[in-house]
């Protein structure tokens, strides 16, 4: 029974992280109307930036390295938009997605070039956690949950209560109209990338804290982020949270019954299941 | 030919079409007018199956077609054009036309291997007919051009020609003369009248009252999703309800 509760806790933990991934993905989708196939690499590089700053020659402790790491992630996100997506703003969808896929491949191999394909970790010892109600929870994991909650609340406030949030929503509704009316779409878009990058970076770091780093981690987390987005409704911030938690729980409870080698496939399976049951929200026509 | 009974469709809280009932007879050009947002295109979309109705029934030649998918509706013999022309950009004018006929043997994968002669003969016949229609709409000199290279007016003619090529029983035209210069409008009207002679039924959404008056035998008027009037064009023109709808309150 304790085992079950432990799995549930782990599931919620993973779910919070996936929620961050999904929120970043859905944010870009909402503002620029395409699925950023390189979002997984933004996540991955966020984790690696921290690794880089914590290692030689910087050797910074985690709390200090965090800010510059996120800053670099933001630069990467803005760079992605500036050099790849902006030139393709008016291109047809296939062209844009192929470029995004190419970008993802470029970034993935860039990380492998710099750090190799081996698994890496941040090097923290596995500390004994607190035991509450028969389940064990480490300080790391508490940090993960708290950080996720903070991020989620922050994004909600930003999106729904601030002027910038309003302009982002206007841009997502109708880019042309927003421009005509004078809403600064350029800034709104840039700001969306900043937020998405922070969410991706934080999520990546938390994931790497909880598990490990490797250059290929982007792809499978993109799929999970997308599955969570789909579950919660594309463009819906709270939905992203819900979707993330569902996937996290499904994964951790699922491995109690199926082979752990397929843990990462559970998100995909949920996605296919949803498609078979076919909520009509997903059946959009190609533009 | 077309019977609509009690058709309703809402989006969110907005009643795009409310309890609409109307009927189209054979050998008739019928017009559909109304202020912007009155539900005309939605009605077309309901007929062609792009969106399913919330309530009501649609009958075509006695067969029930509401809720059918668009391709099935088209296969019944109802072809439409769009407000913003939908031609196939990176395909030639001729190819655009050749796509129109329904139930082409060559479109069935299996037939490519076992019915080669029949396909060849069909293609030849289609090609001849297509070239004839291209001539009729006056685009012969552009037949091998990518459709995206045509001007707006030429694209409208292409879409019209393509609709004729499909040899439908009923054609729905969504604002066929929008954004067109007057001489082209005349040309399009002549084409429509010519097609009417060969027995085709037209249902036309238009804002240009001149076109409606000249072409249509009967007109329906929508406002806020409801049918508020119907009759001969001259009567409609002077109907106070119609005038009020257009002036708006």
């Amino acid at each position: 029974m304790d085992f079950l509760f432990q799995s549930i806790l782990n599931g919620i933990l993973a779910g919070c992280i996936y929620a961050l991934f999904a929120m970043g993905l859905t944010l870009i989708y909402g503002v620029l109307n395409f699925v950023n196939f390189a979002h997984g690499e933004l996540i991955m590089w966020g984790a690696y930036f921290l690794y880089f700053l914590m290692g030689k020659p910087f050797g910074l402790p985690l709390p200090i390295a965090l800010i510059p790491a996120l800053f670099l992630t933001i630069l990467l996100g803005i760079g992605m938009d500036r050099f790849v997506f902006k030139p393709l703003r008016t291109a047809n969808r296939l062209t844009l997605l192929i470029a995004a896929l190419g970008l993802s491949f470029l970034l993935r191999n860039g990380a492998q070039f710099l750090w190799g394909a081996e698994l890496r970790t941040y090097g923290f010892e596995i500390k004994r956690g607190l035991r509450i109600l028969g389940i064990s929870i480490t300080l790391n994991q508490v940090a993960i949950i708290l950080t996720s909650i903070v991020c989620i609340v922050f994004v909600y406030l930003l999106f729904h209560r601030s002027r910038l949030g309003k302009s982002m929503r206007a841009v997502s509704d109708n880019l042309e109209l927003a421009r005509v009316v004078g809403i600064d779409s350029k800034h709104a878009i840039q700001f969306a990338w900043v937020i998405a990058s922070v969410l991706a970076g934080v999520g990546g770091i938390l994931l790497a804290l909880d598990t490990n780093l490797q250059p290929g981690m982007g792809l499978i987390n993109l799929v999970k982020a997308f599955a969570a987005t789909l579950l919660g409704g594309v463009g819906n911030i709270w939905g992203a949270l819900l979707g993330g938690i569902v996937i996290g729980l499904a994964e951790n409870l699922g491995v109690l019954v199926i082979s752990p080698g397929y843990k990462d496939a559970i998100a995909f399976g949920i996605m296919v299941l949803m498609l078979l049951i076919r909520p009509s929200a997903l059946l959009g026509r190609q533009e | 030919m077309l019977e609509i009974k009690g058709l309703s469709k809402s989006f969110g809280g907005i009643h795009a079409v409310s309890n609409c009932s109307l009927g189209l007879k054979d050998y008739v050009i019928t017009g559909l007018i109304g202020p912007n947002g009155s539900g005309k295109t939605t009605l077309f979309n309901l007929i062609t199956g792009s969106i399913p109705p919330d309530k009501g029934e649609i009958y075509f030649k006695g067969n029930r077609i509401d809720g059918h998918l668009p391709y099935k509706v088209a296969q019944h013999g109802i072809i439409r054009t769009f407000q913003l022309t939908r031609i196939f950009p990176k395909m030639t004018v001729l190819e655009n036309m050749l796509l129109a006929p329904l139930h082409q043997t060559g479109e069935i994968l299996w037939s490519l291997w076992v019915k080669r002669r029949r396909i060849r003969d069909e293609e030849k016949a289609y090609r001849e007919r297509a070239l004839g229609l291209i001539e009729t709409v006056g685009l012969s000199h552009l037949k091998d051009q990518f459709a995206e290279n045509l001007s707006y007016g030429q694209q409208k003619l292409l879409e019209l020609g393509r609709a004729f090529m499909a040899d439908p029983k009923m054609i729905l035209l969504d604002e066929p003369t929008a954004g067109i210069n007057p001489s082209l409008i005349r040309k399009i009207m002549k084409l429509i009248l010519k097609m009417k002679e060969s027995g085709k039924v037209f249902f036309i959404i238009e804002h240009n009252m001149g076109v409606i008056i000249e072409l249509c035998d009967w007109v329906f008027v929508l406002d806020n999703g409801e049918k508020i009037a119907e009759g001969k064009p001259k009567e409609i023109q002077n109907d106070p309800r119609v005038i009020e709808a257009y002036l708006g309150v």
Partner: protein
Amino acid sequence: MDLFLHLCVMIIIYIIFAMSLNLEVGYTGLFNFGHVAFFGIGAYTSALLTLQQVPFELSLFIALAMAGLWGFLLSIPSLRLRGDYFGIVTLGFGEIIRMVFQNEVWLTRGPMGLPGIPKPILFSYRFATLPQYLLLTLGFAALTFLILRIILRSPFGRVLRAIREDEVAAEALGKNVFFFRIKSFVIGSLFAGLAGTLWGHYTTFISPGDFTLLETILVLLIVVLGGKGTEWGPVLGAFVLIFFQESLRFLRLPAEWTRYLAPLQQMIFGGLLIVLMIFRPEGLLKEKGRGSNAGN
């Protein structure tokens, strides 16, 4: 000479692989980013069967059927989706299939791979030596090219292109867009399986690591570089890229360099895709049709 023949075989196998993707992406406008899955299914199916002494003719047939079947199964739930979503689903599928190859050790021997795949014996003729194998692949490539050409130049192919251009308009003309897409996807998957089969029997050893995103990126690059939606585009693209890829392999470089060379080469592929999409999305060979503006 052997190097030259090897190059030819690889290029030809990838021509088949690329032609199959070109049908889906170039002609029908499907965003298939998991094409490697069917390549792998074809390879593993044929390998497993022939290793069990099943005659090659039958193995090949079953391998193609499996590839086509999985194409069908994947497309049913996902082909109604809009482009982006379909792209992610296929991307995920590619990863999942790789996981299956990796995890189902009882079937595929997992990471240890399948060694000793026998050379094909077709109609009592054994294609064992390099020149013989070249002949085999050439034959299949020519067959593929002809079959696809018939399909693409037919009214069926015309509908596929129309769907690519404007599926709403195609549907409004009475074409069952969903069915056409499925047929296109299944055919594409089938020929991808053929390419995979030929590849497996050529290298005689396959493992899950051979069927990753890299293969998808490579074949996608071939299709878009050569010119998607053209008949000869995949051929040209395969020549250029496989030549580049294989020649690097044969440069006698120090072992320490390979750790950096592989990701670097792949970075180039990724970068090339980006640059291509921004500056010349049509690729090298453009689709036919007068380019000038007609005006009025």
